[in-house]
């Protein structure tokens, strides 16, 4: 968005007493831009409030975000957007937060060509692949934020049978990766990410970079704990039906959707409690089965989505065993749902089951 003079006059801003924090938003992974679009829906805080410094204590920031950036000049003329990435690569932007959207394809499984890129490599005239950008920028970034389930864990484009060997940023950089400032990769999953979950995490990171907040608390899947600590079921206003053993058998019913394919009892997500936008909408709370889109095992471990999850049948026939059922599902979760399928990894082999045609 290249707000105002900040981006036009980096040198001046950097020489001022207050540091300028750059946000480089790379939507060049295998994604759909749904997380960029989601961020425009955020209101707590909104992107304009972050960009214009409408919250106390925020550092000055310059956002380089393809979706709504003012800058859009040619490589050979004025206002070339991609130049900010090259500056970061040359070490001329510091500090910066790298936001990654989309999963990272495995460029090593083929002899030539490319699955995805973002701008060009000036040295070769070839597209700069998303993974090459990660290799170049990760050591220089103060923090890396993976936005959406594709970037965090691979997501839809990493499902069984995919041809690109897609994976999440932690799969690519390593789950133990730390930035030069000591931050782990910060993951905000969701397909797409909940608008406010994303804007709030950006806000937290900016406060942390500005030295005003301690290390962001993350769980074992690198998710902010205050956003992903509870299950869908714990926040769902249809939980009362579950407790009473009243289960919907047809879509459109206001009762609990567990028998129709809802994975709410085992999925870590705050959407039913928070609503989708300004408290409106959501998933099981408004009649949509939870397909576990925030989970590392998404989508493979939850398909076919419209079938009952394991254990749901027990709950339907013997709802008094409620607690037992939850524990059964939880056990399942711990083993599989919170883990990615094994094929999402680096290497020279394509392990997704797709027979290569090249």
């Amino acid at each position, binding site marked *: 968005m290249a707000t105002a003079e900040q981006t036009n006059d980096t040198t001046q801003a950097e020489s001022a007493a207050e540091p300028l924090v750059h946000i480089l938003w790379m939507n060049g992974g295998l994604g759909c*831009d749904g997380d960029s679009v989601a961020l425009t829906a955020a209101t707590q805080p909104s992107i304009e409030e972050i960009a214009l410094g409408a919250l106390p204590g925020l550092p000055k920031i310059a956002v380089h975000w393809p979706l709504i950036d003012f800058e859009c000049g040619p490589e*050979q003329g004025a206002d070339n957007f991609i130049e900010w990435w090259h500056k970061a690569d040359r070490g001329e932007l510091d500090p910066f937060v790298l936001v990654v959207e989309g999963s990272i394809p495995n460029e090593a499984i083929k002899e030539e060509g490319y699955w995805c890129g973002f701008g060009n490599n000036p040295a070769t005239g070839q597209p700069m692949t998303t993974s090459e950008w990660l290799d170049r920028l990760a050591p220089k970034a103060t923090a890396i934020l993976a936005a959406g389930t594709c970037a965090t864990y691979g997501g839809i484009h990493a499902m069984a049978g995919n041809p690109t060997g897609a994976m999440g940023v932690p799969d690519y950089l390593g789950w133990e990766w730390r930035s030069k400032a000591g931050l782990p990769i910060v993951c905000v999953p969701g397909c797409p990410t909940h608008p406010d979950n994303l804007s709030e995490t950006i806000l937290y990171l900016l406060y942390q970079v500005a030295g005003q907040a301690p290390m962001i608390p993350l769980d074992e899947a690198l998710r902010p704990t205050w956003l992903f600590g509870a299950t869908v079921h714990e926040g769902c206003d249809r939980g009362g039906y579950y407790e009473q053993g009243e289960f919907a058998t047809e879509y459109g019913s206001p009762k609990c959707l567990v028998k129709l394919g809802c994975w709410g009892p085992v999925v870590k997500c705050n959407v039913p409690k928070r609503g989708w936008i300004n408290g409106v*909408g959501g998933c099981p709370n408004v009649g949509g089965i939870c397909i576990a889109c925030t989970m590392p095992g998404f989508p493979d471990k939850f398909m076919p989505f419209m079938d009952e999850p394991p254990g749901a049948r027990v709950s339907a026939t013997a709802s008094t065993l409620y607690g037992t059922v939850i524990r059964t599902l939880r056990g399942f979760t711990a083993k599989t749902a919170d883990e990615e399928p094994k094929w999402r990894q680096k290497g020279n082999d394509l392990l997704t089951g797709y027979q290569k045609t090249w």
Partner: protein
Amino acid sequence: MTTAAEDTGIVEMNWDPITRIVGSLGIYTKIDFKQKKVVECYSTSSIFRGYSIFMKGKDPRDAHFITSRICGICGDNHATCSVYNQNMAYGVRPPHLAEWIINLGEAAEYMFDHNIFQENLVGVDFCAKMVGETNPGVLELANRTEAPHAGDHGYKYIGDIMRSLNPLEGEFYREALQVSRSTREMFCLMEGRHVHPSTLYPGGVGTTPTVQLFTDYLTRLMRYVEFMKRVVPMHDDLFDFFYEAMPGYEEVGRRRADMVCWGSLNDPEHCDFRYDHMSDWGRKMFVSPGVIRDGQLITNDLVDINLGIRILLGSSYYEDWEDQEMFVSRDPLGNPVDRRHPWNQHTIPRPAKRDFDSKYSWVMSPRWFDGTNYLAADTGGGPIARLWATAQGGLVDFGYVKSTGHSVLINLPRTISRPEVTFEWKIPVDKAGLPLSNAIERDRARTYFQAYAAAAALHFMEKALAEVRAGHTKTWEPFDVPDEANSCGFTEAVRGVLSHHMVIRDGKIANYHPYPPTPWNASVRDSYGTPGPYEDAVQNTPIFEENQPDNFKGIDIMRAVRSFDPCLPCGVHMSLGNGKLLEKIHTPMAAILAT
């Protein structure tokens, strides 16, 4: 290159990635700065994901959840199209109320998406900051040109409109961003989540249809109607000014009026999702389908439209499928189905080094075969094709919207501070009276279609509430997945035509090929050498920008490209390829053209 520029005035200019669109798009041009025009253009894109590949063997009921993820701004259009497609495959007809709920959700998507794209992405190309940097004289003129409809929208001078569009600082820019949120609330009331819906299913919806649900939607809708009464005249003033300030601006982004629209917003009283009735229920859609050739409607029959779709490869990183299995040789009516039709397509990627003498792109090229020619038709970003097909079709008449045969009337009721208003969108023509498909008219149509969508939603609201008040609150119909089926779904994604084609074998997906608008618009030169619409439109574009090459922004080219509302994730789900022309910096254009 510099030498070449001194000799001929022709300079290469590349934009990659282009901002303020969805996804990654590169535009590679040669510009003649002496003649002030673009002489060559190639469009590129940069991701391959392989949906058609990884959907094989999956449960057909997962199709709408998966295909929604093709696009992050119109994913719900994919989910909707997939649900239509599945309804045909499973032979299920949802309760009427479910269809009204989907229509209300999709109408809200149009209201949201066109609004944010027009005001927060495209609008920046017309804002005071941008115009001041590219055409200072035009901004000065705008500052002293009174806006003809100032009384309707409140901006006295055209320059005031431009300032209100300045990113973040502009008052209208920020208002539009807020409107993009309230319209997404409307969407979420009906479809649960934006942009990948939670409550859509084959057979209907899971949305709980209470009176409260519709009241919550209606109150937001009426605020939007009030908003549009300001926005339509405001954009008319702004766009008309560009023609006046820069004579000849009609030619920016202009190409022959070859456009396609697959129709959208089904009427549940007619649509039973049966293929053999598709010609009939297609003509009952609240936005009419149609193929426009050189400004004239040549068919609005969805069966004809379906059978005319062809997928050409051109010079792409795929193996052809000529020797592969034909899935569907005849449609359910007995008509022959071409091997290059999506039902019979096989996606066989073969990543390779770019070689301009053979394969240099991931892009496929959808075309519409009219019996003689493979039309490189565009969607015009959606609205212009929809309004054109609807206007000439003469089929739509539901009070709030009426097609006249040459225009579309949009009637908006009284709102809190404004009386009822009728807007008329007329088929655009140039000064010689010829059909006009260009950047400005694509953008203007977008604003009018926002009003159209709001007007249609008012109708759907009445219908839905009538169902609820009559006690018809069922929203879902059970179904069984057959072992074998061939099916299709048609709708309009926000930025244009959307089709989904599915083949089910042994109860699993054997073939699934979605064709969204962007492959049509962003396609490259096909196997017959015909350029894609972006390329074609930009190649004809004169340069009005006053900057010289060293501080050139390319604003006229960007206006031409953005008028198509590029949405590259949609384009690339099966393939739009990457920077096929990156090497062209070092390669004579003639060599590329020869391929």
